[in-house]
């Protein structure tokens, strides 16, 4: 069982790395935003399996934090740059 879990950890990390390569290379801006979704799901999966492999129940709490924060970051990314031009200029003093 532990061998299978350890191997699945490596597989998950490889998928995450491959996804991040796409994020880094993706031509459009929208592709970059996919990073938050990717990390939110794959990162949580890695942490859940890690909680078994390392016998660390606290990793599940870290997974909860990951999920929540990746949601906030994703929303912040998707809503970027929505400020009216003249309003922002005055804020720069």
């Amino acid at each position, binding site marked *: 069982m532990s061998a299978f879990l350890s191997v699945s950890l490596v597989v998950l990390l490889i998928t*995450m790395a491959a996804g991040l390569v796409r994020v880094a290379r993706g031509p459009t801006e929208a592709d970059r935003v996919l990073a938050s979704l990717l990390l939110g799901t794959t990162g949580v999966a890695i942490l859940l399996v890690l909680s078994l492999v390392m016998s660390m129940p606290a990793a599940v709490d870290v997974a909860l934090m990951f999920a929540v924060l990746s949601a906030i970051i994703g929303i912040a990314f998707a809503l970027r740059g929505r400020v009216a031009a003249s309003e922002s200029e005055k804020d720069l003093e």
Partner: protein
Amino acid sequence: MNGIEVLASIFIGIGLLFFIAGTAGLLRFPDVYMRLHALTKADNLGLGFISLGVGLQTGSWSIGVKLLLIWLAVLLASSTVSHLIARRALRGGMSPWRREQ
């Protein structure tokens, strides 16, 4: 390996397959809209299976409830974020990919 462990391993294995499929879609699809499909659907389903497997393996009810909550939260967040990304891309003028005939 007793029955529970075998079942948990099967679930985690299925989850892995979905994750691999999701990343394959992320890398190969020609359009951001399709990549969103791959990410949200395949990865979330994979996460569900992995949560199921991990929950079975730990055998503790409190951790199981926490895992369910995490999966639901990720589901909620992924759907909202993917909607926002797609809406932003569409309004920004990115048209969906069409196969050239």
